């Protein structure tokens, strides 16, 4: 496996947010949104698997990575795993992570590995569709004064959690082989600018978004994450009957 701690940490985000978004298949907004969340969640899981594959982790290693890895080796952003968020908070978290993934993807540079570049381009196109979906919800919230206030409150809370988006896992050194010498602080600033743009185009006043990344903290110090991991392991079924990549 190549040394790509930032990309692997983002795979934690994708995998966990995919799990959280899947709740909305049954925690009903409306039928169309339930269908959309099923698709977005599936694509998050697939994109995480593709990026882990780009880090030269094989199918069995990827399965163990998500189902057997101890909590202290997970380094997700708090944006990705908080359970039972309401819909405006879900949209705020999803928008922030989606914009971040698009920034991260734009810095994946492995010219000697065309397969990775091709996968990165597919991920870009599929996540661009997610971006349109989340931007539409931002406009929906912005169009109603009461909803706009509620959404603005969730955005402000999410902003406080976004400080680690481009932080390396605590105690782990760079560089990340997939994004090369790109300065994580530059990516955090790019993210802040792009996200502010989406919010303000819709008429939502953007809070000051953190533009200096802080290290990602290990999962064993974060109680909600340990609960989510327990749920995931329950979903795997007795004897590991359910694999991560059921689509493969």
């Amino acid at each position, binding site marked *: 496996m190549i040394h790509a701690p930032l990309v692997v940490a983002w795979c934690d985000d994708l995998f966990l947010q995919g799990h959280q978004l899947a709740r909305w298949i049954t925690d009903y907004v409306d039928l*169309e949104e339930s*269908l*959309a969340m*099923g*698709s*977005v969640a*599936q*694509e998050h*899981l*697939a*994109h995480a698997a*593709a990026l882990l594959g780009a880090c030269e982790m094989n199918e069995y290693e990827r399965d163990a990575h998500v189902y057997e890895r101890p909590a202290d080796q997970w380094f997700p952003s708090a944006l990705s795993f908080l359970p039972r968020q309401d819909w405006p908070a879900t949209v705020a978290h999803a928008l922030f992570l989606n914009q971040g993934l698009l920034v991260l993807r734009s810095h994946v540079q492995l010219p000697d590995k065309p*397969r990775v570049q*091709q*996968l990165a*381009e*597919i*991920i870009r*196109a*599929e996540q*661009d*569709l997610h971006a*349109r*979906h989340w931007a539409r919800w931002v406009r929906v919230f912005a169009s109603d004064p009461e909803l706009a206030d509620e959404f603005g409150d969730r955005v402000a809370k999410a902003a406080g959690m976004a400080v680690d988006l481009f932080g390396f896992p605590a105690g782990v050194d760079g560089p990340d082989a997939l994004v090369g010498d790109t300065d994580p602080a530059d990516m955090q600033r790019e993210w802040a600018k792009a996200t502010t743009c989406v919010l303000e185009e819709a008429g939502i006043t953007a809070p000051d978004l953190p533009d200096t990344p802080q290290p990602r903290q290990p999962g064993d110090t974060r109680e909600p994450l340990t609960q989510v991991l327990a749920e995931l392991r329950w979903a795997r079924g007795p004897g590991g009957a359910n694999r991560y*990549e*059921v*689509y*493969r």
Partner: protein
Amino acid sequence: MTSAIEDALAKVEDPEVPVTLLDLGVLRSVTVDADRVVVLLRPTRLGCPGRDRMERDVTTAVHAVDPHLAVEVAWEPLPWREQDVTPAGRAALKDIGYAVLLGGPARCPYCGSEDAKSEGEFGGALCKAPYTCRSCGSTFDAMRSALAALGEA
């Protein structure tokens, strides 16, 4: 032998839509050696949940011809496009109520009108997008790639 294997693979259908993988543009190539068959597939979307089933169905089809052959299924990391659907595939999809976007507006598979309203980015499956026909009032899905949805196809 090669011809028999190709014929068998040409009959393998998508797990969800009753159209062959060949006509959908998912089956890209077949290479037959003395003891091995390599089947190259291209997913409509990276997270297509039918991939595992497709691999099994492809393997079953080859083994129906020769159970001793090793089968290797490889997934091509390239974007699937609507243009990959063959004319026969488009006709089969239309018959079961699907549109295929080919650079123009979505054409209603029931009345042929091009006056259809997009109902969002996501339909009942990753590769489908929902539409409502303004002419006949029918709702339908279009097979739609991420690139087509973004206007980049």
